[in-house]
């Protein structure tokens, strides 16, 4: 029987020999799988691209497009790369087996295929695929979708590349006082709502959240994928974040809870984006002066008593539609030169 936890598996048999094709299909159907078949490699690839399959049973000797070519094409195709392949062949010689494995085949079954062995190999293959799918789902849960896709496409390597992007820092004003005045369960609940709102506003404008620490978060616009108007997108996201918190506060006040306020700092320019950490544990992040500046600007919102501060580079990317007030140069810790700070005017929502 097929593994019921994952439903019946969908299998494709590619073999040019009709007797082999019928026999293999019959054996697999008797094991509870749903099976389709292809009479050569070209047809198999077409079917793989058209329908979803969990596993391919591939003969090597086929006219038109042979098994080796199928393996090669699958390996170079992002959409097909993760489909498990079991090679079924009576090809003579161990070098063929080695070549199949090198090309990404998961297993090799000599022909005539033994039904018991077939069942065991397919079970193992499908189980491995289930684990891989689970792992992918986990990566998606703990990393931004763009980062998960980037990981899947280019693999994991520590180190980064230079990008032109905008960085946004945000935190809740007076969070420590607030956290002390209420039970921790309530604080967690507040944080969950806060993060849900912030994530929504950020991803809605093409940004990704790269870091969460307590009530603080960092988001980047323009990495890992380039974003043409990253400065404008970051500011739009920030304005939406402030608006969402205002709406959230209406609810809080109605429930006799203190309203919360957030402060946001944004800086734009060149930075290095990539994976930092160790091979065991790493995070996608951005590093550079621009990032430090965004963090300083966010800190400065308390001093300036403005919810949203940006640097000159972001200011220059905004155009005329966004109302901005120049607050003049500010001396930041760790910066040798004064920095021109701009406050974005937040439209009244109520």
């Amino acid at each position, binding site marked *: 029987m097929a593994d019921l936890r994952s439903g019946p598996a969908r299998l494709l048999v590619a073999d*040019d*020999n*009709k*007797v*082999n094709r*019928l*026999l293999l299909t*019959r*054996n697999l159907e*008797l094991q509870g799988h749903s099976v389709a078949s292809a009479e050569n490699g070209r047809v198999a690839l077409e079917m793989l691209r058209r329908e979803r399959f969990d596993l391919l049973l591939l003969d090597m*000797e086929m*006219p038109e497009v042979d098994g080796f070519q199928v393996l090669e094409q699958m390996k170079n195709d992002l959409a097909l790369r993760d489909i498990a392949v079991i090679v079924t062949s*009576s*090809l*003579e010689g161990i070098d063929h087996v080695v070549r199949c494995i090198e090309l990404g085949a998961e297993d090799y079954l000599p*022909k*005539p295929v033994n*039904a018991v062995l077939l069942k065991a190999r397919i079970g193992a293959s499908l189980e491995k695929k289930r684990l891989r799918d689970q792992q992918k789902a986990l990566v998606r849960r703990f990393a931004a979708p763009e980062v998960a896709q980037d990981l899947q496409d280019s693999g994991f390597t520590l180190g980064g590349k230079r990008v032109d992007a905008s960085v946004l820092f945000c935190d809740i004003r007076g969070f420590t006082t607030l956290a002390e005045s209420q039970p921790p369960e309530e604080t967690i609940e507040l944080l969950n709502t806060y993060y849900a709102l912030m994530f929504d506003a950020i991803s809605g404008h093409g940004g990704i959240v790269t870091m969460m620490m307590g009530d603080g978060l960092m988001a980047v616009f323009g990495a890992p994928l380039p974003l043409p108007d990253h400065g404008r997108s970051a500011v739009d996201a920030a304005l939406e974040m402030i608006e969402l918190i205002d709406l959230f506060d209406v609810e809080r006040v109605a429930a006799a809870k203190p309203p919360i306020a957030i402060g946001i700092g944004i800086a734009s320019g060149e930075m290095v984006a990539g994976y930092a950490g160790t091979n065991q544990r790493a995070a996608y992040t951005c590093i550079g002066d621009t990032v430090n500046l965004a963090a300083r600007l966010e800190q400065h919102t308390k001093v300036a008593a403005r919810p949203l501060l940006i640097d000159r580079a972001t200011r220059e990317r905004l155009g005329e539609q966004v109302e901005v007030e120049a607050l003049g140069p500010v001396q930041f810790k760790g910066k040798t030169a004064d920095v021109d700070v701009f406050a974005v005017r937040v439209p009244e929502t109520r």
Partner: protein
Amino acid sequence: MTPPPIDAATFAALRETTGAEFVQELVETFLQEAPSMLDDLRRSLAAMDAERFRRAAHSLKSNGSTFGALELAAVARDLELSGAAQVSGRGPQALADVEAEYARTAAALKDLCNG
């Protein structure tokens, strides 16, 4: 003494795992397909098309072993491994063995399915 064309244990196991009705269907398919494999062998040998020759011998070997036609599989395997060039050197009777063994196999398979 010549061994029986079909290994009884292999054939019984095939029936056991896939069902008698299915095996009958499979035998019919083989009897339909095999003549064109033999034809492929003759034509590719005449044309000295080594790749096609090897593939035809390979298919015959593979199907032979499926039904327990061990002799047929062995003769076909010899052709596959020897290659068109060497087999051609054996003269006009080079394919006689495989043709005779196929005839014996086909007759035995028909008997098994009707019996």
